[in-house]
């Protein structure tokens, strides 16, 4: 079983970077730069783990998270200096990323899935 990861960030280069770094045989990553499209696809995708950017022009991280399946673990990824999300995320990962930390989060959830 592979870990199905959803990554939403309006920064397409970052989406690509994330996918390049972490997608492998056991981790499947789908990225969206538009939260609306992400919402349209979430039911079909059935992700095990979701990363959501906070500051997205059309919809902020709080709003997006509240529209995503509540049971799915969600992490906030943000460049804000002092993120204060209303949504109760599983964790906050500030940009620029500590990639070791990201790797760790992914590994934890992969392990849980298995």
């Amino acid at each position, binding site marked *: 079983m592979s870990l199905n990861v959803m990554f939403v960030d309006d920064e397409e280069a*970052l989406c690509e970077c*994330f996918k390049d770094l972490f997608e492998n045989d056991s981790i499947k990553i789908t990225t969206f730069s538009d939260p609306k499209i992400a919402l349209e696809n979430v039911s079909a995708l059935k992700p095990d783990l979701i990363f959501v950017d906070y500051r997205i022009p059309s919809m902020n991280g709080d709003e997006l998270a509240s529209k995503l399946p509540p049971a799915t673990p969600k992490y906030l990824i*943000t460049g*804000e*200096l002092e993120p204060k999300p209303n949504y109760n995320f599983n964790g906050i990962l500030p940009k620029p*990323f500590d990639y070791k930390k990201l790797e760790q989060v992914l590994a934890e959830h992969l392990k849980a899935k298995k």
Partner: protein
Amino acid sequence: MVILVISGLLILLGLLGLIKFLSFQKTWKEQKLSCDIMKHHLPSGLILVDRSGKILSKNYFAIKFLKELSSNSEGDNFFDIVAEKLFDSSENILERSHLPSKILIESGLEEESLIAGYDSELLNSVVWLHFISKSITKNNILIHLMDVSEQVEKMQSSMVNELRLSSAQEFANIGSFEVNLLNMKIQASEQLFKIFPTLSDPMSLNLQSIKDVFVAEDRIRFAKLVQECIDSKSVKAIRLSSFEGSSPLDQSARWFDLRMQAIADDAGKIVGISGSIQDVTEQVRIQQEYELVLKSVEIGVFKWCLRTNEHIWDITMIRLFDMNSIPQNSDIPPWEAFIVPDERVHVINKLNTALQKEDRFDVEIPIATKNGDRFVACRSFIERDDSGSAISLRGICWDVTKQKQLEVALENEKLKSLQTAKLASLGEMAAGIAHEINNPLAIISGSSVYLKMKLELDEKAKAKMQMIDNSVERISKIVLGLRKFSRSSAVSKKGRFELGHILSDCLVLTEPKVKQNGVLISVEMDKSIYILCDEIEIEQVFINLINNAVDAIKGSVKPWIKIKAFVDGGEVVLRFIDSGNGIPKSIANKIFQPFYTTKVVGSGTGLGLSISKGIIEEHGGSIAINDSLGNTCFELRFKYEEELNYVA
């Protein structure tokens, strides 16, 4: 003259023969009287009449007088002759009936005297005659008459003068006196006795008795003035007082202006002193009231005569400028000496401009006194002569130190809130910028990780990759540092913060400037020290101190900054030491004032240290220059709080 005397004597002899002839028994006294009259009152006439007025005998001068008097009547009755024309000093024609009582004496040897005048056609003026009549026998009267026109006229004019003088003296309440230094006799005008009712006896009046009118210390001044008068021959003036009570504010107190001048004889020898004393009690009382009002509002009054450079200051002025006693006018040091040295040139320039073309000189003068720096406000009027050049400056001064301090405090408050507002907007901007920077940073670092994973790199390339990562980290730290500002827009709160942590944050933010200027910076602290503070505010202070230090030492050889923190008794001491040679003493107490800056115009606002001081004092701490280390050192002290550090 000799002829006159001889003929007078001849007539007298004739007369004496006549008297002898009339079997008149002369006494020794009568003889002496006649001799005296002849001796002392020549030229004069002698007429012997009987009690009916019949002229029995007359001498040459008498003939002359009688001839003119009797131009119209040929009679030889003395009364008829004189009654027709004589008038008294009030210019009333003397009636015949009055004459016997005025000139003739019923009996005895009493003397009568009358001054009467007549219009002389010959001389075309009034001739005044002095008649002295003596009853020498039962029936006969000897009348001595002489021309006293000159004396009467003199007397009349002097009387008029005296009358004028005395009314003037009364009006001005001035008494005058004249001392004869040879016999110490003193003559005084009537008004003097009115001024000093205690000096009722003109006979016993002397300098001592005038002197004794005044209070003890003024007696000494009086005596001194007399001596000065004699020595200098010029007019000397002085104000003296007399009072019975203990204070010059008593109702009994009176004041007098005394003026004296020596009188010299033709040879230049001082023979006397003339003086005047004016009762100025009224004026002084008005002045006292005025001064009292000025004193109660603490307003000093001054006059500055520009030509003589004479300063006239009242007591409040003297107090304002913090002088202990009332100096003589000439002893008032130049007022500009009181101005705080840094401001002196500015104030003097302002004064010179005003003197050239303005009617006023209004200024606030910072002055240095024994009790510290003060501010004196001055409002003055410039008086000019017809040609427009300034003659004098008159005005008032008062203390505005409190207002000034308030103004400064207010200004500081304003600057601080301005600074806070600046920080707030910087914070807002920081938040926006941080997000914009962090996204690309995430891409760079992510790509770097990817490249390291995918590429076979040699050592140099690996080092370059590491350089990318380090740079990302550095940018990230700087952006993180801005976080502080974004938070400061919220209400600041004090908390427990570790000094080392605050310092390392400061070093991150100041690092670019420090490195750019080649400054070696180090922090020395032997243990973690926690203080209760508003982290952002304190960080501001530290950054400011570091920036100032860099500005001061940049360009010098091997510039360095050392930051030392340690606990000294109950205090946390934090020293910012740099390689500079210390702050010059002349500016040491100025650098904490707002707008004080040594930096080139445009590179500093001069707000840094004054605000820093304000922040630190708000934290219950202090900031000062420590000049004991040889290098420039700003020393900060905070209260060391045991419980904060115990928990740690």
